[in-house]
């Protein structure tokens, strides 16, 4: 059976070009990139090359890129690292603003920092389209706010958040906080509000220049962009106060100790190189896609249209206009998500669901719930995420198979339509 993978937001397959770039670093180039001898220096070249690719992506300086073990670590470092740097300056309770639709790698860091009594956190809601509203963030800003962290693209709905607009708003607030640019003092940097965005789901489709976004901190991950798992990066704008949260080495400017994961870093660099070479990229807020992204959008739209035509009582979750071209999040009323997922899997089709039943908890998707979608409709949701390898034949197959599955489950349900 030819399997069909429509879960690219969970992880992407390896691009062969990435693997090719990595291979030497898994075999003959084995040195420790911190060693002074030639073995180390050769490995370091790989790390430097990768850092160059990432600095192109962010449009930033070489030293503004920090390699990590992935997005979760990047998020932990961004949030906790900033709070720790501020605390070193002045021990008071600081304030963080985030949204209710963030990934657990943000939400749970916030909760941990709250529990430790280090910060207070405002969790901003979203509108029915799944969008964070800039004004809501603005309203939440307080004197002790030091950080706003909002994801670039939501992993469940694919909805693109107004990152650039938030960045601009924060910039204005900061101008008022530090009025006279002539007489800047070193301590001024502790008066600013910093802006972090978890951009793991955006890299393939959205503009990533830090300057354009107005972001001080940006998280990315290798395995969402056809690169390796276990490697990610954090862009840290020069001058942003960040303290190390792990200890034991001098690597990455003392911010992130640990022996360089050279093959992983090179793989991340190779994946980013592919992103850098794909052009043009869609604007920060939707806009039109080109190249490979155009094809993905075409297939995604075909999938949605096909499903809507063949299956009654469906609902698209989240704004379609402000969404990455790869995502379709659809609820099939009176059919349960995990059951649909399992039946699709039996047909060789991999998707994901916002149903509680598949999450290991009893809670349905916190993202869909934040959009005021009733719990029973969350349980009925499926997330299809396409990738650059998705073919029209695969989409046709899903459109052929899914109606039977939904009908079968609806027939099994005690709820009468």
């Amino acid at each position, binding site marked *: 059976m030819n399997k069909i993978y429509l879960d690219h937001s969970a992880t992407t397959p390896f691009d062969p070009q990435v693997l090719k770039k990595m291979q030497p670093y898994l075999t003959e180039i084995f040195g420790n990139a911190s060693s002074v001898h030639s073995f180390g220096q050769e490995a370091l070249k790989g790390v430097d090359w990768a850092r160059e690719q990432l600095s192109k992506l962010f449009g930033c300086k070489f030293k503004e890129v920090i390699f990590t073990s992935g997005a979760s670590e990047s998020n932990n470092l961004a949030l906790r690292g900033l709070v720790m740097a501020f605390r070193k300056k002045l021990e008071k309770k600081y304030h963080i603003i985030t949204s209710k639709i963030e990934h657990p790698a943000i939400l749970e860091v916030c909760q941990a920092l709250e529990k430790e009594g280090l910060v207070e956190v405002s969790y901003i809601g979203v509108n029915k389209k799944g969008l964070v509203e800039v004004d809501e963030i603005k309203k939440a800003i307080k004197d002790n706010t030091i950080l706003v962290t909002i994801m670039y693209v939501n992993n469940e709905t694919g909805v693109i958040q107004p990152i650039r607009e938030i960045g601009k708003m924060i910039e204005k607030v900061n101008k008022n906080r530090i009025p006279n640019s002539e007489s800047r003092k070193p301590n001024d940097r502790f008066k600013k509000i910093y802006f972090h965005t978890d951009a793991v789901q955006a890299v393939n489709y959205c503009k990533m220049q830090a300057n354009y976004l107005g972001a001080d901190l940006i998280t990315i991950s290798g395995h969402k962009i056809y690169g390796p798992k276990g490697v990610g990066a954090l862009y840290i704008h020069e001058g942003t106060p960040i303290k190390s949260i792990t200890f034991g080495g001098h690597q990455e400017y003392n911010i992130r100790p640990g022996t360089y994961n050279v093959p992983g870093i090179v793989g991340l660099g190779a994946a980013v190189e592919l992103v850098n070479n794909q052009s043009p990229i869609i604007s920060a807020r939707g806009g039109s896609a080109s190249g490979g992204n155009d094809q993905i959008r075409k297939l995604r739209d075909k999938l949605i249209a096909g499903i809507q035509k063949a299956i009654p009582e469906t609902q698209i979750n989240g704004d379609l206009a402000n969404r990455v071209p790869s995502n379709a999040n659809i609820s099939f009323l009176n059919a*349960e998500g995990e059951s649909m997922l399992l039946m699709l899997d039996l047909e060789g089709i991999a998707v994901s669901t916002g149903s509680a039943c598949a999450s290991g908890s*009893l809670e*349905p998707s916190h993202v869909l719930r934040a959009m005021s979608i009733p719990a029973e409709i969350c349980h009925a949701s499926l997330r299809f995420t396409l990738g650059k390898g998705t073919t029209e034949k695969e989409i046709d197959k899903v459109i052929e198979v899914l109606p039977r599955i939904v009908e079968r489950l609806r027939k099994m349900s005690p709820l009468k339509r």
Partner: protein
Amino acid sequence: MQYSDILMDHFKNPRNQGEIANADGVGEVGNPVCGDMMKIYIKVGKDAKGEEVLADIKFQTLGCGAAIASSSMLTELAKGQKLEDALKITREQIAEKLGGLPKEKIHCSILAAEGLKKAVANYRGQKFTETHEEEEVEKEEKC
């Protein structure tokens, strides 16, 4: 989380799925807000000794793979049994017969066991309180 082959078999080929038009008793448990909902239909007959037996049992379920498989297994265990014996079917038995259930899916087997008890109570004209219900209400507030 992993499902056993037995469970997957019951999910793929559910036994006794459907409704009984002129059922003697019906028990509906769970609710769609919390993701799982089951309706158990029973037809009661008498055996040679004149004791009440489950002549037929069918289910309808809206829910996850474990919920569908638990309902299916329940009906398989209960069908043809004396009413009194069928009432003794526990959630542990259902889970065990399915080759085990992941921890977070235990409530599916609870629902199935209670669905039958509720159907029998309905047949007998008794009131049945789901022990699961309290838990359910709490959960509802959260989910």
